[in-house]
């Protein structure tokens, strides 16, 4: 029998079956249903992959708060690295006594907890209302202190970033949380007389002066990390942390390649979204991230070998742009007869390998500059087009994030580019933190896209 997507309720029985078959779990293992006790009510509305590897993935994700609390209790320094999504966390994990995480991740809490923790209401009370991106939940998390310990150090990249995040981070500083700001310049084409540096991923390029500038800004972060940890962050440690990051990225890269190019989809969209997210800051445990991804990869390879998966070989192949505020929508794609074949969840630079064998700070600057959100929307569209081609996607869904400053303009640019260069159908949708009220409309739109993909295929 092939894999199935099952409900939380079904996972109870499935867990018993796996346990009786000798399931060996890591320290954070256990029944998925226990997370309801933490208020993670959205789990009741999701459908999960039924493998032990997926169980481990979910348990790992849903126990991050416990890991952060334990790290604090053990006296390790907590660093909240905000906005750059992937680079400064790699730096922080070079230090023995530091655990880094992205407070940005709080944007999923209203979804996961179905607003039961009222983080959005707290944000409202601070004057950060619905016209902001759901990342406003982060301000609520800082005020309530219920979801992560207040970090010993906060860093935040600004410049070529969205206004929502920059504004909310500034409000955090106004609440008394000191922030080490560092500048991420808008990535531009190199000047005609300037050395061109090709960035990780191979699609974007920057001028030498921009690389040097970002290095200078990452030096600011390096000094702050040294201050808070009391450890020297030297070149050897940085080279080692880059190598470790690349190990994770290689496994994830192979997982993406295997899943997105398989004849029959071996792992659902929801689990793949969670897996990709792990690359950003390892869910606060780098070693375990690697192990979780390796187990997922083994499961995927086994399914591909057995020729089993989700949907048939005629399932519509969709490339997904931007993360969804409500995880339930990822299930919806499969319900409508689609599958994911490629993604840009705003952190493709956290998936690309960081160059090794060069000066580590230079390598990190290159990685930071490869951020798809730091350049123009045309740049981002070019990268999407390259990945669409590589993964063989037949259509693109651009998922707007409500209130996000980049979403009102970029969808049109990306859509025009993809229609013009690849002649692909592009659908824009907007996903709020809880999509229940708009679910029928979203379903109809995705279903229509899937139908048109199938109609356009040549017999």
């Amino acid at each position, binding site marked *: 029998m092939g894999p199935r997507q099952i409900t939380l309720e079904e996972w109870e029985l499935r867990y018993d079956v796996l346990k009786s078959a000798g399931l060996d779990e890591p320290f954070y293992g256990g029944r998925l249903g226990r997370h309801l006790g933490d208020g993670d009510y959205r789990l009741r509305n999701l459908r999960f992959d039924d493998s032990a590897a997926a169980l481990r993935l979910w348990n790992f994700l849903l126990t991050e708060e416990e890991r952060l609390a334990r790290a604090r209790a053990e006296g390790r320094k907590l660093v909240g690295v905000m906005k750059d999504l992937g680079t400064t966390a790699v730096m922080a994990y070079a230090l023995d006594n530091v655990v880094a995480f992205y407070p940005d991740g709080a944007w999923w809490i209203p979804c996961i907890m179905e607003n039961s923790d009222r983080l959005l209401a707290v944000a409202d009370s601070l004057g950060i209302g619905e*016209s902001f991106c759901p990342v406003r939940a982060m301000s609520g998390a800082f005020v309530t202190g219920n979801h992560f310990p207040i970090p010993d150090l906060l860093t935040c990249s600004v410049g070529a970033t969205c206004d929502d995040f920059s504004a909310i981070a500034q409000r955090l500083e106004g609440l008394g949380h000191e922030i080490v700001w560092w*500048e991420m310049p*808008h990535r531009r084409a190199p*000047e005609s007389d300037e050395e061109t540096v090709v960035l990780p991923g191979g699609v974007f390029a920057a001028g030498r*002066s921009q690389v040097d500038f970002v290095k200078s800004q990452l030096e600011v972060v390096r000094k702050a990390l040294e201050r808070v940890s009391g450890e020297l962050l030297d070149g050897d440690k940085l080279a080692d942390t880059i190598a470790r990051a690349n190990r994770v990225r290689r496994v994830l890269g192979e997982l993406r390649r295997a899943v997105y190019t398989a004849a029959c989809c071996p792992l659902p969209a929801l689990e793949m979204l969670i897996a990709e997210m792990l690359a950003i800051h390892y869910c606060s445990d780098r070693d375990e991230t690697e192990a979780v991804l390796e187990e997922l990869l083994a499961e995927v390879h086994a399914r591909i070998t057995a020729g089993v998966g989700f949907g048939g070989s005629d399932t519509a192949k969709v490339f997904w742009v931007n993360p969804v505020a409500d995880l339930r929508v990822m299930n919806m794609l499969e319900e409508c007869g689609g599958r994911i074949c490629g993604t840009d969840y705003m952190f493709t630079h956290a998936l690309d390998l960081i160059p090794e064998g060069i000066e580590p700070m230079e390598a990190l600057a290159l990685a930071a500059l490869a951020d798809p959100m730091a350049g123009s929307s045309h740049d981002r569209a070019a990268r999407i087009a390259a990945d669409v081609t590589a993964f063989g996607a037949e259509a693109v869904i651009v998922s707007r994030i409500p209130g996000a400053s980049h979403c009102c303009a970029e969808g049109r640019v990306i859509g025009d580019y993809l229609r013009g260069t690849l002649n692909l159908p592009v659908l824009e949708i907007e996903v709020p933190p809880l999509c229940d009220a708009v679910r029928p409309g979203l379903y109809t739109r995705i279903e229509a896209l899937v139908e048109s993909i199938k109609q356009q295929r040549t017999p």
Partner: protein
Amino acid sequence: MSVIVYTCPFVPGEWIAAHGLQPRRIIPHAAEAHAGIGCAAGLCPFARAFANHVIGDRQLRGAVFTTGCDQMRRMYDLVNGRTAVKMFLLNVPKVWRSAECVQLYIDELRRMGRWLCDLGGRALADETLAETMIDFDQHRQAVRGAGCRTQPSCSCHDGFIKLALIGGPLLAGELALFDLIDRLGGRIMLDATETGELSMPAEFDPGRLREDPVRELARAYFESIAAVWKRPNTGLFEWTGRMCAERQVQGVICHRLVWCDLWHAEVYRLRQALGLPFLDLDVSDDGVCERTTGRIQAFMETLQ
């Protein structure tokens, strides 16, 4: 055909003029909903109005967009390719207490200078720049001293409620706000919008100007103008607080365009920091509409 248009206060007009081209900082008119780049939910009305101005004015030589806010940065992407007007995106750093960021701003000005030369401008000479800076500074001095808003004790303000208008940039149609407030018994003593005094560069220091005009230009603009998007944006709070006290302001109207997260997020703190009666005036691109008038009217009544 030598006009270079822009809206951002961090674009120094004297830099463009010193390259032999004509700087024109505009306050755009609200855009027609379906004109130019069209309308989409979430688009800033001001950025859209500027974009449509650039698309619609065939007499322009060039247009300078900046990265001050993400909306304008993204608007550059939208306009790019939809007009024959040459466009330039000036990267203005958000972090400002940093020598590297000051240098980045200077490097960006020089990059813009090369673009201006490509458009037919002349190569920059320090002497020309210094002369142009002095000339512009004198004009600004005249504006600074004009009227009696800087003299709150002047008898012409008697009977009026002294107000500060702070916030994001005004669209051309919103300039009528000044008359409206006047009619309702108020007097704008401080225009701390991005199209007003808030965006005025500092006076040039003659000694530093002679020594290194480019560096002095960066000091007067990048380091001195307070902006809501600077990180940290403490300068905005210091400046508005000081100016409200100097001008004996009795009430504050905060003008913010819908979808402007940067001003929206700071309304709460500004209200607390200034400690004055405060009206959060959210506006779209429909000028001084009935709703706006009604809200200001009610605010004025509470201050009587």
